[in-house]
């Protein structure tokens, strides 16, 4: 097992190196002079020279690549041109929102997708099966941004003045603020890299922050604001998971050991859950890993539709404003996160299937 884990982690290293290389190349390919982009159109030649020296732009390209990689590995993502602030700080502010949204969407996708798939498989060819599969096919084909807009219209306008009303945008209702938990408990932390960054990062998870500070008004508000975006975002992974669960359970239900389990008189529920589903789980785990990429891409669209200040939203704004350091670092963070999650999925796979770790 240990050998397998080590091998998988070592295999991820060249991919991470490749990600850095690709973002470096993309950054250098972006049209326009980095000096005028950073200092403005009217930057003088001397200022540009100083700028080039400061950022190592006068060095050979391979040295530049070395400097770039060194900075990233030390956690120094540079400074945003648009906001004149360290990119790390922007990440600390925006990343928690995206993680909260994607996690909630994934949980919803699993909670709805897996039972739907199992039921469809158990009642193969029944009306339930047909409806579930039609729903899954429509779900896979859903433009997330369209579904989000239509749901915002439905829940914020059509269902206005009913208990089903849900807010169409933002993270919290205007006027509500989430006091960071470290301030709430009066912890003395020096602003700056280190502990402060970590505490600030954690306190930007509004759900987590409001739970540890027992602020249930903010908790309820934060959750109601997340429902619509998470529902929109979860559609595609949910549909993929439901389809995969169904076909995988169907395949396993035809196996001899399932017939044996039935023959020895086990209750159908036990047969389906313990014998069939457990063995059908492997392909489902794979598909969860694969659908995460769509989830992260979909986050850009969902955050745009629901005006949420997450990673996807800021990445999009950075592109329109040509804020190169932000584009590069956010792409790196998202891609690295994606690789890390897929690594976790692979490890989960090995845990679930002894055949993989032993060969």
């Amino acid at each position, binding site marked *: 097992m240990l050998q397998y884990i080590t091998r998988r982690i070592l295999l991820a290293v*060249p*991919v991470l190196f*490749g*990600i850095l*290389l*690709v*973002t470096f190349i*993309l950054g250098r*390919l*972006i*049209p326009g002079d980095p000096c005028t982009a950073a200092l403005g159109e009217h930057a003088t030649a001397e200022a540009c020279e100083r700028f080039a020296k400061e950022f190592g732009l006068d060095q050979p390209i391979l040295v530049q690549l070395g400097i770039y990689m060194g900075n990233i590995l030390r956690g120094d993502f540079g400074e945003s041109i648009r906001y004149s602030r360290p990119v790390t700080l922007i990440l600390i502010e925006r990343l928690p929102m995206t993680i909260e949204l994607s996690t909630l969407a994934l949980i919803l996708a699993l909670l709805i997708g897996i039972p739907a798939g199992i039921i469809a498989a158990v009642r193969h060819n029944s009306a339930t099966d047909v409806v579930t*599969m039609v729903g899954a*096919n*429509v779900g*896979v*084909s*859903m*433009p*997330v*941004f*369209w*579904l989000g*807009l*239509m749901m*915002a*219209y439905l829940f*914020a*306008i059509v269902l206005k003045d009913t208990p089903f009303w849900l807010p*169409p945008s933002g993270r919290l209702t205007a006027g509500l603020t989430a006091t960071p938990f470290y301030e709430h408990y009066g912890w003395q932390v020096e602003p700056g890299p280190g502990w402060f960054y970590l505490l600030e990062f954690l306190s930007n998870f509004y759900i987590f922050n409001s739970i540890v500070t027992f602020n249930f008004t903010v908790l309820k508000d934060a959750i109601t604001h997340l429902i619509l975006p998470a529902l929109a975002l979860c559609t595609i992974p949910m549909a993929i998971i439901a*389809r995969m669960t*169904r*076909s*995988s359970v*169907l*395949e396993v*239900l*035809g196996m001899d050991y399932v*017939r044996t389990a039935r023959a020895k008189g086990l209750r159908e529920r036990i047969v389906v859950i313990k014998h069939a589903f457990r063995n059908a789980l492997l392909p489902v785990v794979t598909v969860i890993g694969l659908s*995460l*990429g*769509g*989830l*992260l*891409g*979909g986050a*850009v*669209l969902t955050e*745009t*539709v629901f005006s949420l200040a997450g990673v996807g939203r800021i*990445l*999009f704004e950075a*592109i*329109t404003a*040509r804020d190169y350091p932000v*584009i590069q670092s956010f*792409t790196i963070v*998202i*891609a690295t996160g*994606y*690789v890390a999650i897929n690594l976790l999925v692979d490890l989960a796979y090995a845990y679930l299937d002894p055949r993989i770790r032993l060969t």
Partner: protein
Amino acid sequence: MTTLNQQSEFVPTILDPEALDSRPITLWGLVRRRFFRRKSAMVGLGILGLLILTAIFAPAIAPYHPEQVLIGVEQVRKRQAPCIHLLGCPTDQPQHLMGLDGNVRDQFSRVVYGSRFSLIIGFTTVTFAILVGATLGGLAGFLGGWFDDIVMRIMDVLLAFPSLLLAIAIVAVLGPGLINALLAIGIVSIPAYARVVRASVLMVKEMDYVSASRALGAAPLSLLYNRILPNALTPLIVQGTLGIASAILDAAALSFLGLGAQPPTPEWGSMLGTERNQVFTAPHLVFYPGLAIMLTVLAFNLLGDGLRDALDPRLAHVS
């Protein structure tokens, strides 16, 4: 129960007069029969057929030119709700099935013309991705060695990015626009085809008929193009059809973000993007283009699934 059902399905096949027919059943005949038996694939084919007809006959179907501004032409105001005479809209008002957009253009005509863009986007990106991906994957699988290693590692890195994000980053470099968006989506989809083709080539190249050709002195490239690639085609067709669906979806997303087709092009994603802030006051401007995207993507997905089951009968019983 399951086994009983399976048996009862098998028995009639033996007694099936068609099966007793002395005419040989060809591989493609079998595939065709399996494909046409699937209802969902037929639905997909139906939607796609309608879409293609709409795209071809767009000038005849659309009552207006998609970019014609109707101010001064008719008594209408911008973002006017749909007016359908059959549903009780006064007949003295001009009929607009899907209402008017923010620039006082007929939304229905724009949605009709949008089908052209959608189909072109789907087919061009996938053709590009297949040409590049199949060549790279085919060569990688055929040649092996260092070429295989390098190509597949590059593909791994490309796959490490969520596809839409990588497409966004590429458009950031190339600049916004429909052509650049198509190129970005094409580049992003290359790895999928490269992997599929490489896997089939690796499998096919050890087959006896390939060895036979090689023994007869076939040149390596002719071996690849005449013997190996045609036999690796099946997964490519399936992947390509499903790929069109995701290419259309991604292109619409890019246009929605303002990075793809630019207004006034009647492209569905871009139409949705320009009017998205009006969703609360004029939902029809968001509803119809989105529905069109959904139906188109659904058609290709159903078709792809149907083809997969028809071409690979091992999977047919489970999905």
